[in-house]
């Protein structure tokens, strides 16, 4: 093979060379493998998912029979699904809000130089860096019904009694609170990093000029810095929302959707129905309910990217 190729290259057949010297040709050749990979393993599967959702496909009966919107109709009529839909929005909204507040606050702290700042930053990044599955089981252990360190501390401080210690993951409301907190905990370091990147990108003379003109701390923060970093924060937020809205690992590991479906979210239910029960068509239909939200977010990303290019 090498023998065959070698002489052509060394003789540098004018046509071959001419082609690769053209920017567009080399550009297309260079970008083709990435596009092809993504098309074959993201584009096609996506279309397949759409088709599954309107078919009667299960792993036991892999038929491609078209059933129209019947799957969607059955799903929407199921009260469990409606609860799941509500959970998903609550879970996403609450954990992103909490994450953003913590992130903004943490970024303000880290903006100021102080001894050991690098070390503190390294610690604060941890929840985002460490695989979420591993961090989730650490939290599961902290929420343990008997050996919870949180309960131990609350009892030791005299806030609660051992007998009425909360069963964090066993109570529907507390379980929801737990998955929200763990998700916010996982994302706020990312928010800090995004805020910091945005704030440090603001030219110092803009801030100086504002200070000279008499703008105080809050004014500088909310009328000058915030509008300037808004695009970058928006992109960070969109990422956060996409990954929270479509995540199942925290829920799967902490509560397994329970107790009695109280923390079941769309991605988790799609997994349960489509993979665990093997009802691929209904699972795909459930997953596709994530699509409208994703589309809105993607359009949001595009608008922000475009605006920044101008």
């Amino acid at each position, binding site marked *: 093979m090498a023998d065959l190729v070698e002489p052509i290259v060394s003789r540098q057949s004018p046509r071959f060379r001419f082609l690769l010297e053209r920017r567009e040709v080399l550009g297309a050749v260079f970008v083709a493998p990435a596009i092809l990979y993504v098309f074959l393993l993201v584009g096609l599967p996506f279309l397949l998912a759409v088709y599954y959702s309107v078919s009667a496909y299960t792993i036991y009966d892999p038929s491609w029979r078209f059933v129209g919107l019947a799957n969607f109709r059955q799903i929407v009529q199921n009260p469990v699904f409606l609860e799941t839909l509500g959970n998903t929005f609550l879970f996403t909204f609450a954990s992103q809000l909490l994450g953003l507040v913590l992130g903004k606050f943490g970024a303000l702290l880290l903006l100021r130089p102080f001894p050991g700042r690098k070390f503190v930053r390294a610690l604060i990044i941890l929840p985002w*860096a460490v695989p979420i599955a591993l961090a989730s089981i650490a939290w599961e252990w902290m929420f343990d019904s008997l050996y919870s360190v949180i309960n131990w501390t609350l009892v030791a401080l005299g806030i609660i009694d051992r007998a009425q210690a909360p069963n964090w993951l066993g109570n529907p409301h507390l379980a929801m609170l737990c998955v929200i907190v763990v998700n916010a905990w996982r994302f706020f370091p990312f928010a800090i990093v995004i805020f910091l990147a945005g704030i440090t990108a603001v030219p110092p003379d803009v801030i100086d000029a504002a200070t000279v003109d008499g703008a105080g701390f809050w004014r500088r923060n909310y009328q000058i810095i915030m509008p300037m970093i808004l695009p970058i924060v928006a992109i960070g937020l969109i990422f956060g929302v996409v990954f929270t809205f479509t995540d199942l690992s925290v829920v799967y590991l902490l509560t397994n959707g329970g107790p009695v479906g109280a923390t079941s979210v769309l991605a988790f239910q799609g997994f349960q129905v489509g993979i665990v029960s093997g009802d691929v068509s209904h699972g795909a239909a459930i997953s596709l309910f994530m699509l409208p939200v994703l589309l809105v977010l993607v359009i949001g990303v595009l608008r922000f990217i475009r605006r920044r290019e101008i």
Partner: protein
Amino acid sequence: MRRFVGGVLREVPFYGAVAFFVVLTAFPFYWMAITSFKSNSDLYNLTNVPFWFNEPPTLEHFQYLFEQTLFARWLLNSLIIGTCVVVITLLAALPAGYSLARLTGRGGETLGIGIFLTYLVPPTLLFLPLSRIVANLGLQNSMWSLVLVYPTFTIPFCTWLLMGFFKAMPIEIEEAAIVDGCSRFGAFIKMVIPLSLPAILTAVIFTFTLTLQEFVYALTFISSAAQKPVTLGVATDLIRGDIFFWGEIMAGALIASVPVAIAYNSFLDRFIEGITGGAVK
């Protein structure tokens, strides 16, 4: 003196807030670490203060992990998966990132954004069709399914990252090489790649950590214990029936977390630069 005390007092809320954040983020990992070194009798005794060692620390959980479980195998699996995905990703993303930054002009911009957007397509939308595709390829229950599927998010991610770096690189270097008689392809291989080794290293580290962090595809495709990557193995396979071996689980989680945490922290600035730079410049 009074001014000094006043200064210290004024700093108290600030350092208090910093301490709050540090405890919030680091405590679960402290808890992971201390659990993994505690003896079982210490762990499961409610009268002990749980925050430190009441009995001498022990390595028994680590010993059990390596001798009685498939933990070492999972580590090896993760290493193999990560390495293969890194190779595939670089082969596709390096030329693609370069092409989108330098060769394709206005259309490349749109294409670049398009590739980046596929990074936003969540695994939970694709896992059903991909699990059927994987099964049809005969890869179900095999870690090679992950080698096939992980590049679907690492390629977009690294293409975007590298595109940002290439855009920031002075174009004169390649132009000089081309003027000196290098072909465009030659300039890429001989000039661009050696000069972007730091960027490539960043891409390698992040590809590797992304494969370690991934959970959904691994959970979906792989059920036989010997094929699991370390994250999945630790999270799902150390539970016997309803009994959680917390010492072993936390020891495994600790070992798998430490390298990722270190890698992330050392490359964080480059990562941010890449993510934001690709969009700005």
